[in-house]
């Protein structure tokens, strides 16, 4: 029967064009994370030019970072509505326009707007969709794909840092901003690679949604009947839908607030928000700390290079490890371990007093940092499923936005008050060990509850495994459907709709 066939969506390709998409995401994510850090080279010159203080210049970076993370929900809504490709291409265009107009700025306020808001917003429109589309193209090899794509950040940073220095030496800051604007347009190229997939066709969707609704009402029992009256059913249900939908449901269609009832999502949110409080501060203060202990400027900068190189290698490696048979079902534990490992590194850092000690610290820090970043989005996808990931990532980034911005300043205050860097490291280490332990315990609890729910579900249904859905490639992965409420989400994939239909039969 036609609807059932059309409704059964194929699983994600897990390869083929998917690897091209990973490359595009690599570029896009790389720019989103590395570009704000790379701009720091220009700040001293701009500070002299406009005659402002250091903190006024630092605001440019902060506004950019805040916009990139804070505009997450907007990005999610746009992706839900238009798909990844148009959003990334528009984002790339916005970044380019932002930097080009920044080249002609005559005041620091204009820089805040051009570099901070416009470019920051463009980068936000790059980051979210890139992560989302990986979830659409990969399932079995998703951790590897995520690890490879996230490796874009250190690679781009290592490329941008010398490039920015070269541009600055030859063209000054205005010329550099102009050229960087053009370079950011390459995000449009990355976006062009994001071929839409898995969205299916609109008529099929409305059919299936209509069928799903009827199935819940228990009216239709045969596929054949549905085929003959697709139009009637659809139009009838559509008017019902429009009337039945109130404002909340309409918002829910674009941004899935029901995620706040999702246990896994809440655990992830709390754990990550806590973690980001101590995540970035050590990187910001590593070079100043090294100089404080008497190491010269170039060796201090070299520490950051070591970090970046280890990071570059750690991310795809972690992806491969996370994809293995032993780790993947327990990926949440691996993630908690990585966070706690990170914290342990920071706690041990004050013991390293010589340059060799700091080199060892940088290597381990790079490893831990890469491990956490590689799995950052993979674990969220694992918890909420690819369908709701779009909204989930938006909500998570806006929550993280606050702690990310607070982290380094709090570290700075600790350093200024005590005059010693070690309290900042202790604070970061403690926060991360706490976050890691929290995630470990809560995920242990979550896994047990899910296993119990799965047992209950198996007991109720007679043939639960006959339908192979997009999200449920593995037997122990019914988290998505068990966690979904009975509310109708027009964005739920056809597979789910078909399943409900079969259950109603």
């Amino acid at each position, binding site marked *: 029967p036609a609807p059932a066939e059309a409704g059964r969506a194929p699983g994600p390709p897990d390869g083929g064009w998917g690897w091209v998409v990973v490359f595009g995401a690599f570029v896009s994510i790389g720019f989103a994370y590395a570009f704000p850090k790379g701009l720091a080279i220009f700040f001293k010159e701009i500070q*002299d*030019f406009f*005659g402002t203080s250091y903190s006024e210049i630092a605001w440019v970076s902060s506004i950019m970072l805040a916009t990139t993370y804070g505009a997450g929900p907007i990005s999610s809504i746009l992706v839900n509505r238009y798909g990844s490709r148009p959003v990334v291409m528009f984002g790339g265009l916005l970044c380019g326009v932002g930097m080009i107009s920044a080249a002609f700025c005559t005041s620091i306020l204009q820089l805040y707007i051009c570099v901070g808001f416009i470019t920051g917003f463009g980068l936000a429109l790059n980051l979210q969709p890139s992560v989302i589309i990986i979830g659409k193209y990969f399932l079995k090899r998703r951790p590897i794909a995520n690890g490879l794509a996230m490796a874009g950040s250190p690679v781009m940073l290592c490329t941008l840092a010398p490039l920015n220095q070269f541009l*600055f*030496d*030859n*063209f*000054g800051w*205005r*010329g*550099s901003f*102009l*050229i960087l*604007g*053009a*370079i950011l*347009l*390459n995000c*449009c*190229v990355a976006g*062009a*690679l994001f*071929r839409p997939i898995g969205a299916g066709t609109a008529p099929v969707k409305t059919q299936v949604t209509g069928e799903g609704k009827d199935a819940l009402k228990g009216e239709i029992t045969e596929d054949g009947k549905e085929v003959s009256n697709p139009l009637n059913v659809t139009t009838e249900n559509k008017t019902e839908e429009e009337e039945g939908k109130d404002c909340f449901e309409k918002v829910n269609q674009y941004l899935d607030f029901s995620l706040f009832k999702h246990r896994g999502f809440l655990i992830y949110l709390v754990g990550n928000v806590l973690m980001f409080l101590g995540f970035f501060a050590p990187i910001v203060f590593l070079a100043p700390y090294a100089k404080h202990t008497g190491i010269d400027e170039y060796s201090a900068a070299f520490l950051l290079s070591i970090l970046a190189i280890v990071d570059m290698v750690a991310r795809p490696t972690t992806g491969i490890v996370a994809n293995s048979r032993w780790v993947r079902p327990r990926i949440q534990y691996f993630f908690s371990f990585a966070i706690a490992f990170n914290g342990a590194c920071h706690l041990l850092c004050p013991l390293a007093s010589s340059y060799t000690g700091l080199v060892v610290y940088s290597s381990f820090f790079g490893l831990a940092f890469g491990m956490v970043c590689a799995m950052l989005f993979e674990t969220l996808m694992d918890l909420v499923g690819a369908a709701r990931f779009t909204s989930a990532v938006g909500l998570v980034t806006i929550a993280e936005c606050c702690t990310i911005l607070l982290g380094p300043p709090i570290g700075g205050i600790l350093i200024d008050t005590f005059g010693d860097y070690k309290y900042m490291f202790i604070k970061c280490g403690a926060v991360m060990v706490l976050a890691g332990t929290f995630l470990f315990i809560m995920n242990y609890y979550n896994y047990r509850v899910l296993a119990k729910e799965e047992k209950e579900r198996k007991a109720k249904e007679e043939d639960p495994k006959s339908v192979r859905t997009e999200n449920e490639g593995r037997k122990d992965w019914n988290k998505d459907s068990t966690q979904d409420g009975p509310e109708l989400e027009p964005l739920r994939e056809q597979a789910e709709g078909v399943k409900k239909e079969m259950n109603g039969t």
Partner: protein
Amino acid sequence: EKNISLANPTKVELTCKLDENSNLKNPQVTWKSESETISHTSKSQNSWSIQLTISTSSQLGSYSCILKGEEEISATFHLQVPKIEGKEKPIITYEGDIAVMVCKTEYAAMAWTWYKSNGTKLVHIDVSPQTDKFQIKRQSASVNRLEILKLTKEDDGVYWCESAFALGSSKGRFELKVLSIMAPLKPFLAVVAEVVILVTTIFLYELYSKKKEKGGEREFDQIEQL
């Protein structure tokens, strides 16, 4: 070796301390300036010092303590006027834009003067209300700012900032390069062209592969009908 910056006349005490673990026992100590030996020295357990009153620039220079025993060790102090941080790399600016040169020292300077190099001569830079070309701003006692407005190619060159202290003066060097707008425009257009070409290629490739798929599907449908 140690560098000490002195801006104003002051009294200085220089001390040479011998490490307890050193092999040298009861050495003979002499203090020397560049030209002569100093006699008024004072001694305490394992440390020797001199007191100097620096009031003119001629008293600046290197002072060293020499310890003679089985070996000979010495330490030197360089007393000098505060140095100015200039910029080693050239400052890149554009025609019609503003150039800013910031001159910084550690201590408050009495006066600041700016010069432009013209061949071997130094031309003093005047701030006159008529020309409206130069602006000199005093951000603080130790920071001075030269702004050059409405840049042209002729403004290209080497600039000097001189700060005057009671004990002398020191200079900082700045190099200014004025480029035309065309300079960054070429790489800019090159990158934009690359982006446009890549995006077009990707879309064309996608259309091409979709056409191939559709052609294949049509064949499949026909076979089914048969």
